[in-house]
């Protein structure tokens, strides 16, 4: 039964990783910005959801709105006021990465100072687990996380294939020059990429806040995992990021079953390390890596 329990947990966590990784992958694929602060977006969304719900006592719909707005605003602001100036004068990969890492540190510590460093979680009626089978506890939240992840992916797929902006984003990842000749501004598209990519962390952030709980380092942890998922899945492939996110979530939980909690992160990164050495393009990545 423990196996089933961990599998169920793994699927929920995996769904959250998949969404966050998809957001990172979308941003990285279309703008080539290594947005390490994506984890900070996650943490902000989670904390503000918690604050709105538990601190201000708002209705959950408002709390979701607050969380989503803050994530999008944060992502877009970073794009406008941090990445854009850096890219204007140089924009080497590492410069962007260091700035992004820096902002991640700032956010993590600000959240810690404001909300405290301990673990927090909001209890919602949906968080209560029921014993569906002997030894298997599930809460409505488990299913909800997976269902909303599926909805998000379907919506994202529709957006990218059927809307003008979505097509522009996909074109941007393949050929920036082409985008310019079609009269779309890469800068404008970059804003959309950040807005959309940041929005994708919201479900994960909310379910984490309402489920397993959050601490200021949660963004960092989720980011590391999303990064692993993005690379294992193949940079630039949303499908790859999603599959790998799910896989890692499940692997992490099953590793707990056999090896103990302390090995879960190590397992993920061992997978990542071997992928980088033996198949750097990932599951679904484009053929070459330069």
């Amino acid at each position, binding site marked *: 039964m423990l196996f089933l329990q961990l599998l169920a947990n793994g699927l929920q966590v995996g769904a959250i990783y998949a969404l966050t990784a998809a957001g990172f992958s979308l941003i*990285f694929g279309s703008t080539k910005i*290594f947005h390490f602060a994506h984890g900070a977006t996650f943490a902000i969304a989670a904390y503000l959801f918690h604050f709105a719900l538990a601190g201000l006592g708002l209705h959950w719909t408002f709390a979701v709105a607050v969380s989503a707005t803050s994530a999008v605003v944060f992502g877009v602001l970073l794009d406008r006021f*941090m990445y854009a*100036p*850096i890219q204007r*004068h*140089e924009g*080497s*990969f*590492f*410069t*962007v*990465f*260091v*700035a992004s*890492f*820096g*902002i*991640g*540190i*700032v956010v*993590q*510590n*600000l959240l*810690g*100072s404001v909300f405290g460093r301990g673990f927090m979680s909001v209890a919602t009626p949906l968080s209560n687990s029921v014993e569906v089978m002997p030894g298997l506890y599930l809460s409505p939240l488990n299913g909800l996380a997976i269902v909303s992840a599926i909805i998000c992916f379907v919506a994202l797929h529709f957006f990218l294939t059927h809307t003008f902006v979505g097509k522009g984003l996909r074109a941007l990842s393949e050929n920036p020059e082409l985008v310019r000749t079609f009269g779309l501004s890469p800068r404008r598209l970059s804003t959309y990429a950040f807005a959309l990519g940041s929005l994708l962390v919201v479900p994960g952030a909310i379910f984490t806040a309402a489920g397993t709980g959050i601490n200021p380092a949660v963004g960092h942890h989720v980011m*590391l995992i999303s*990064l*692993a998922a993005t*690379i294992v899945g193949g*940079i630039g492939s949303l499908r790859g990021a999603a599959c790998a996110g799910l896989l890692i979530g499940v692997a992490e939980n099953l590793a707990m079953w056999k090896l103990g909690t*302390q*090995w879960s*992160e*190590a397992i*993920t*990164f*061992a997978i*990542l*390390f071997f992928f*980088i*050495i033996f198949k*750097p393009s990932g599951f679904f990545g484009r053929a070459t*890596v*330069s």
Partner: protein
Amino acid sequence: MTAYILNLLVLISVYAILSTTLNFIIGYAGIFSLAHAVFFGIGGYTAALVAMHVTPEFFVAVPVAMAAAAVTSLLLALPALRVRGEYFVAASLGLQVLAVTLFSEWKSFTGGIGGVIGIPAVELFGYPVYKPWQFLLMSLICLTIIIVIIRTLVHTSFGRSLKAIRDSESAALASGKNITVIKTLSVVLSSALAAVAGALYAFYMSFINVQSFMLDTSVLVMAMVIIGGTATVSGPLLGAALLMLLPSALTYLSFLPQTEIGSIQQIVYGMAMVLLMIFRPGGIVSSHPGGSK
């Protein structure tokens, strides 16, 4: 008060060794490693082990520590040869996370989470070094030697080959450079020298645990290099001094809540990383503002 200052200076020189050796691969070889703390740790644990079970002699413990780090650094050289940019950063991150798990689980080598306690004082040809000022002298000498080694290397043909590979790998290949050997050598060298810092640290603290060798340390050292200025000699030294002095400087600002000092320190250096990348990506000591690698 003097004890306090001596302590700070020893720690600054230990971190200056780390930032100098990391700068060697970041600044000159273009290998952006986030796993430097791993070799700091391997150096520390190995030296501690040798000191406790074999001899606390500096000229035995430190070379063994360096050798251990050099061998394990091949794990970092491997991805450095295969991939670049974000892929390599991710690989080094992976190595760092793996190492932390091993450091906390491999109890016979590292003592697990509890760490290694009671590391004896280091000896120089049989004479124990335990007074803080003696220790400071010893670490400053190590730092100086390492700076000289690295400075000399980057001004030789080897240094030029490294920089050539950093600037254009394909052009370096087309000019006949054996990239595999050159890159591997630079990673091995940087890691072995970082192990010296680990050994000094272990001897100085006489107690070490995994807490000192986590991703945070790798990031801190990277921040020292970046903030100080990559591909310069004085940059990493300045960066190390600034970031180590920051917490003590903040303690003197009495209006700050003392419990928040740690956070404020991190916020300050996080902000410094952001602002520098926007306005002066070459770091504080940058001969060419606005355009360094």
